[in-house]
């Protein structure tokens, strides 16, 4: 994997870090029920990573090709550095397709603007 501050690994492909990549841990709350007294109660079953939209303001043509290859299958692994500074490899599911806008040409290179994909993370973790 390339230096972590600049790349994220999706399905084995190193892709430049997306804008504002902030993996968020959210509690996995299931089985909500409104009680006779009007309170809402539920079961909490560990935590999971919240759905994330990964956006790239600009992406070189080669990186875009890598990204498209990475998301060719509907589920894959994503490796990134979490706030604890260590590598985390998690299972991810492609929820939204790449949104590829018009290319522009800059210094003889093809650059794609406003690329985005949405991922959801199916795994639930019991530890904190």
């Amino acid at each position: 994997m390339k230096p972590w501050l600049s790349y994220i690994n999706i399905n084995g492909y190193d892709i430049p870090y997306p804008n504002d990549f902030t993996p968020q841990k959210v509690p996995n709350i299931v089985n909500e029920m409104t009680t006779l007294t009007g309170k809402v109660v539920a079961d909490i079953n560990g935590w999971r990573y919240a759905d994330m939209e990964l956006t790239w303001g600009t992406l070189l043509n080669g990186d875009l090709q890598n990204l498209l290859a990475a998301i060719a299958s509907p589920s894959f692994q994503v490796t990134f550095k979490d706030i604890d500074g260590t590598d985390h490899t998690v299972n991810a599911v492609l929820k939204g397709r790449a949104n590829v806008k018009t290319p522009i040409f800059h210094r003889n290179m093809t650059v794609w603007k406003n690329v985005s994909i949405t991922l959801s993370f199916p795994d639930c973790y019991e530890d904190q």
Partner: protein
Amino acid sequence: MATIIDENRKHLRRALRVECGLQETSDEPTSVTPFGNDSDYIGLANLDRGMITETVMDLAGSGFLNNGDAVPMRTESDSFRYGYISEDVARADGTFSTPFGVTIAAGKAWEYVTLDVMGQHGDKRVVYVKPTWLGGSATIELDTWTPGERAYIVGIYLGHAWLWSNENLLSVNLDLRSVNTEIGGELEVSSIEIQAYETTDYTDIIGYIPTGEPIWYIAGYVGDMSQLRKFYLSETISWDDNILTIKGQDASMLLENVEVPVDCDNYGAGWDLDYVVGKRIRAALASITYEEVGAPPQLYAGSQEMLYDAKAARSIISEYTGLLRNENYFRVTYVDAGRPTLTFGAVGRNWTIYADEIGEFDVIVENNKNKLQMVLPDYYMQYNDNVEEVKTTSGKTYFVELDPPIPYNNIWINPTPTSSEEINCSLFKFKAAASTTYTVGGYEMLSDLIDANNPYTVNGSGQGETYRFDYDFPLFVLDDSQSLTKLSLAEVIKRSNICYEFTYRGNPHIQPRDVLNVEIATWVDVMIPISGLWPEIDLYPAEDLYPDGAYKYGRQMVKTWETMTVDSVTLEHGEGGGLSSKIRARKGTV
């Protein structure tokens, strides 16, 4: 330690631990000899043994049979009561320096042996082995394990065994039913349906696992697990889209189509409630093994003739148990299905449920009009001795069927045999005490000529005596002066016709016939003087209706408490590890 009681009081409850299993049964004589194990290791108690109970670990291959028995491979005195632990920790490459494993001797060469293996840190693995059997024994060696850890064999099962837990369970749904508290009715079957994620293709195996194989279930928090609930496979396992579906029912499914023949008794002085009700329930359970706990009191003194019509076992269990109070009398437990239990003197556990734990709440009012009806007898007794003679050889056993094969009362034999037994109302078995001619006789019971004035009183011809009969409901025919009559009749009549059905956060400990103390919250509209506003009142914006400002509308929550007896419990462990439950209960202690 988390308990379900505490967790249910919280807004966010920790997900429960759920474990289920299925195993092929074997009652083969079996012995296990470990090798490479640490005989002095005393740290076993500190190991996280997960949710598997000691009972399950002790099963070790035999499983619980349909009578609920489990035959342990190891004896109680074995220092390794709950498993064998490797002498060495695994080396860096995962191998053991001392070979570790077990030698199994069995009467049959099982194609598969399943080992339930744990690490010191509680990780569990199920290992399927296809052993080579030589001379009735097979050696299974565990070569590798997690580096730096000991391996710990906690269960050995001959044949296949599956263990499922939160990690691979998709859903577990249970319907726990017992004798319902309705008048009449039939004993209902408790059931379980398990869906588990399984990527390995076992289709060549699951089709051959016969119905009747044991399934077990347990749920709760570590240290606060429910009772081990046992079921038996009721349909062939299916495997589709990596999902195993396993359906099971409790032991009462074995009572399907079982009918108890007509029976009669001399209901003599000193016989008691146990006799009247217990005997009939025992007869209904006779085709399956059941357990009986406790002794009933002597409640009845007097002398009556009792006649019981032929009836389906399920109906008998339901009707007769329904005559009894929960408190201090018989209690029949079927939901721990491995072995139905007749308990005397045990009250179902009491549970408190708060309004904060209840979702939808419905009140059902039953119309019981005409449900309590007298049942006309099918037979009456006529003192016509019908006699069969049998020439005997001393010491031999004879079966005598009185002709015609209708019910007889008071079957007698002369001279006195070594032993005798009434197989049913017309079939008699005895062991001759001498080589002579034995005479077996009885009084016919016929099915007409009922006294028109009192259908429950029939004059026995020739004797000039009056006999009373009971048909299905003892309460209607015993003399009013008998305490038994009052007791049973009162219990049925005073039973509430109000039932409750509600959704509940769930408690895997609760089972039918338990008593609940439930807090019910209802919102009522109130109109109160403005000067008396209570802070908890959630006001409607209704001031305009009373422009003088003297009164205001508000909604007030009213909390009441109800005692109820559980009829049935549905437990649903759904996706994401959540548990929800539905309970149907009858008002009062039934």
